[in-house]
């Protein structure tokens, strides 16, 4: 860092302010100056830069011929035009202790924030296990905002890990330098530049990703409700940011946190009520496949199925069920798009018939979705085959079978326990994966016909090989 500031000063850019990894320079005549970055051991990370200890320290340094530039919490930056001036820190062991204390706190805090963010989103995994974790990951991939959240979580986690590793490496190097009576360095210039560039690249990527995944899509779809929500969010975010920057020198206070949380809650309430406040409606549901409603219906798959006597089955019941209660949702993101459909028959569970159609141009994403769809606990493989260019894999899910207790209870009540089996077919081709799930209606329902009809429908999708 010191080396970086000295090089900038030699080029005519004098450091004026520092906020995290962002430096403010002002144009001056090029100077050959000496910079020094000092770390104060006993300043807490919650204190502002204008604290008593910092002021006393600055006074000592200025009396010794140094000029104070700026401070941020425990970090003090000073310069001198005398390159032979006595360094601020002449005791390497004390310098190492101070840096080690603050570095350890910072590394632990960064790791804690990364883990906290991950837990906030993925905490249900602790209860639901890997399957639920997979579902949560899928839901992140299916929306642009989810991808943004995933990017931030990954950065925080990786940043935390990198912080811990670099702290441990630095400790070893500092101890080695100390034992060899060599100066204890904060960080080599090359490592500092790499970290500095990496942080700025991340911020740039974040802005670009936000524009592509959220802003551009929202403007293209004329989704005024979402745009208004974004505007409200940014107003509150920048307001809280500016406020915290203005209080930076004073340090952390609990009332600032309370004010920030109150602003966030008001914002969330406003965004929730934006429809009624501004009379805005959410964008209508639409399919990106056909534009005319769901891609696949019960009546298309089950209608015309014949039983052993050659009689048609399921036709009217399927139509009635579909028209009665059904839901169709659509998710679109830059990585994965999906369209889901469920029917809700009155007397049975909601999973009587459902499908999800996935589309992605990224093979890795499709493979991940395929593994999630096929490797579910309780699924038993029921064969696979090719229907032209569509690869079909079948499973059965017998989790609907009643337990022994339920059977015993049913028998006591005089009921005949019903065996409930669900059929799952996973169809794959090109950028699509279609997963259909339906209750097995017994011998009257031909699995081959159902899968064949689903495959025919899939062949009409654009881009099918």
């Amino acid at each position, binding site marked *: 860092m010191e080396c970086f500031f000295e090089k900038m000063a030699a080029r005519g850019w004098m450091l004026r302010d520092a906020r995290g990894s962002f430096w403010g320079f002002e144009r001056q005549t090029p100077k050959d100056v000496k910079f020094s970055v000092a770390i104060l051991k006993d300043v807490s990370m919650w204190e502002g830069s204008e604290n008593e200890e910092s002021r006393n320290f600055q006074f*000592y340094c200025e009396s010794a011929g140094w000029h104070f530039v700026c401070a941020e919490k425990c970090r003090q930056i000073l310069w001198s035009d005398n390159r032979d001036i006595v360094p601020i820190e002449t005791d390497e062991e004390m310098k190492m202790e101070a840096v080690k204390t603050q570095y350890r706190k910072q590394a632990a805090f960064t790791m804690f924030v990364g883990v906290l963010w991950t837990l906030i989103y993925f905490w249900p995994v602790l209860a639901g296990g890997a399957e639920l974790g997979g579902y949560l990951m899928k839901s992140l991939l299916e929306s642009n905002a989810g991808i943004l959240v995933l990017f931030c979580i990954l950065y925080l986690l990786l940043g935390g890990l990198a912080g811990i590793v670099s702290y441990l490496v630095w400790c070893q190097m500092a101890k080695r330098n100390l034992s060899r009576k060599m100066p204890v360095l904060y960080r080599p210039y090359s490592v500092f530049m790499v970290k500095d560039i990496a942080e700025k690249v991340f911020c740039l990527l974040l802005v670009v990703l936000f524009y592509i995944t959220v802003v551009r899509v929202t403007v293209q779809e004329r989704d005024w409700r979402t745009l208004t929500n974004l505007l409200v969010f940014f107003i509150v975010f920048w307001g809280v940011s500016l406020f915290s920057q203005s209080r930076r020198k004073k340090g952390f206070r609990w009332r600032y946190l309370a004010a920030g949380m109150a602003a966030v809650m008001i914002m969330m309430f406003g965004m929730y009520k934006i429809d009624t406040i501004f009379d805005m409606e959410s964008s209508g549901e639409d399919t990106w496949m056909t534009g005319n409603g769901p891609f696949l219906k019960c009546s298309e798959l089950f209608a015309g199925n014949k039983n052993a006597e050659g009689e048609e089955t399921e036709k009217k019941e399927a139509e009635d069920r579909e028209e009665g209660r059904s839901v169709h949702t659509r998710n679109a993101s830059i990585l994965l798009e999906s369209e889901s459909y469920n029917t809700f028959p009155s007397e049975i569970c909601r999973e009587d018939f459902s499908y999800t159609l996935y589309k992605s141009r990224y093979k890795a994403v499709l493979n991940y979705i395929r593994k999630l769809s096929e490797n579910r606990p309780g699924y038993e493989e029921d064969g696979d085959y090719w229907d032209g260019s569509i690869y079909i894999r079948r499973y059965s899910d017998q989790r609907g079978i009643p337990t022994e207790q339920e059977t015993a209870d049913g028998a006591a009540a005089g009921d005949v326990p019903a065996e409930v089996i669900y059929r799952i077919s996973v169809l794959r081709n090109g950028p699509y994966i279609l997963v259909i799930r339906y209750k097995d209606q017994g011998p009257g329902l031909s699995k081959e016909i159902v899968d064949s009809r689903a495959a025919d429908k899939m062949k009409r999708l654009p881009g099918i090989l």
Partner: protein
Amino acid sequence: MPREQFQSLTEPMYYILMSLQDECCGVDIMEKVRGLSGGRVQVGPGTLYALLAKFQEGDMIEETRQEGRKKWYRITEKGNDSLKKEYRRILAMARDGAAGLEGDRDAVLEMEKLWDFGRSGNGVLL
């Protein structure tokens, strides 16, 4: 057994305590240390600031007066005892060194004199 703080003093600590035999303020301490050590030992303002805080915490020095941010300090009884102890330790090492390393009888006698009279190289009476 954990090492007691200030059981042995580093060079900067030693010279800082020596310069605080008389009341002195922070900035002047740096000059005094340079003078006492003949330019050999230099204490930076950051190190001085940290050491003064440590000494105050360990009751080795006390603040005598303050004008704005400028503070004056003086060594305490406890600080004096630690300083004397360190001086004797250094003398003992020098005496052993003179006998064992130099083999010079005159140097050994000189060291013995110093040890007996308790004077430092700069004539400070302890």
